């Protein structure tokens, strides 16, 4: 059993976008704070009340709102942020689709929206429009009215399904 006192710095280990990081944090600090301090500022703090989804990341394969996870709770986790999607200077198909369909205006919700789309398409590679809308119901966008975001996720789903045979 490990017991940490309230002022104690706790050493935590995270694997973020494939790289190992070690850092120290007080027990009360949130995962979103630690990720941003480590330079992953694509993880946004929006509402800070687990409503808006701007802080969505993938933790151990599942999408979570990093403003509602303590950093100490994430010790030992594998984390994927929006910064980990592009490979070799090439955008991820979801990012391309958001670009092509103009699925953003101010862009604040975009990293969270993209990470939730990433998880949605992993769970359900060919979602219906209704499933897409339900899938992003935990992510708020105050600019677009969602229409182009839904279009982008549809396009991303096509792109990813076309890519799949090549990947195997």
């Amino acid at each position, binding site marked *: *059993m490990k017991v*940490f006192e309230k002022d104690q710095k706790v050493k935590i280990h995270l694997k973020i976008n494939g790289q190992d990081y070690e850092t120290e944090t007080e027990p009360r600090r*949130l995962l979103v704070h630690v990720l941003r301090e480590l330079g992953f500022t694509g993880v946004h703090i929006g509402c800070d009340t687990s409503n808006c989804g701007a802080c969505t990341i993938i933790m151990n394969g599942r999408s*979570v*709102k990093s403003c*509602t996870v*303590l950093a100490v709770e994430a010790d030992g986790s594998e984390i994927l942020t929006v910064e980990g999607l592009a490979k070799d200077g090439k955008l991820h198909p979801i990012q391309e689709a958001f670009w092509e369909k103009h699925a953003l205006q101010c862009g604040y919700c975009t990293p969270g929206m993209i990470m939730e789309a990433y998880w949605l398409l992993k769970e359900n590679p060919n979602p219906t429009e209704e499933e897409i809308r339900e899938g992003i*119901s*935990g992510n708020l966008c105050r600019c677009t009215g969602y229409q182009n975001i839904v279009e982008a996720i549809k396009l991303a789903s096509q792109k990813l399904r076309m890519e799949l045979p090549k990947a195997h």
Partner: protein
Amino acid sequence: MYPPKIGYVIPDNVKEAVEFLESHDDAKPLAGGHSLIPMLKLRIIRPSYLVEIRRLPELHYIRVEGNVVKIGSMSTHYDIVKANIPLLSETASKIGDPQVRNMGTIGGSISHLDPAADYPAALMALDAKVKIRSNRGERVENFSSFAKDMFTPDLNQGEIVTEIEIPLLKDYKYSYQKLERRAGDFAIVGVAVALKVNGDVIEDARIGLTAVNKTAVRATEAEKILMSGKISEKLIEDAATKAMDYANPTSDIRGSAEYKKKMVKVMTRRAILAALSR
């Protein structure tokens, strides 16, 4: 927003967790944290230590044993959706949003016991049992007595929920209907219905209501009406009307008491019809 300063405990097993909780009066167990962490941020609670139980492997399982389903308390809503358990999986799929379902746990939800939470409607309809563990051993309570009052489960300091047990309703038709103001919100009215249909009669009816009382209730008189004759529009209408007798809602941001009470009838009818059409 930061939570207040807190100590943090990572036990290796349930035994260590309950021992620590027993010996530290204002320590609290941390499950998925999706009610607890927002409450910490708002300073509604200020525990001395959080005791992390979410990752304890012994609380992660969903097992079908004969006619019952045993669910480890740290199973997430996502795990429960994926497990295809009659009525309970559909109820879990209506909780919050996908990210919340990935972290939130059934044990955490019923230990918090928000009066508008979704699970209690199904757990009442299913006559669920709750297994509770402490330093002194284990006890099992019916969910109906476990849910004493709003935000007031039958849990003493040093006790945690380890398992939820429900009957496996193999031959039932079921539905959970939730009225919400916007996607991901708590229920304005939630109705869980499970029906055992034989030809044109209902042999067993179970109706659980959430969000319209201090705790979830089972609308037993409405169930009796459903079992009293051949299935007809009138029978369903009468049962749905009777369900309103079990609603004692309060007016709040999600609607007036009068509106909510009327919606109990509408949602009960919808749930019965959705179940029958399965």
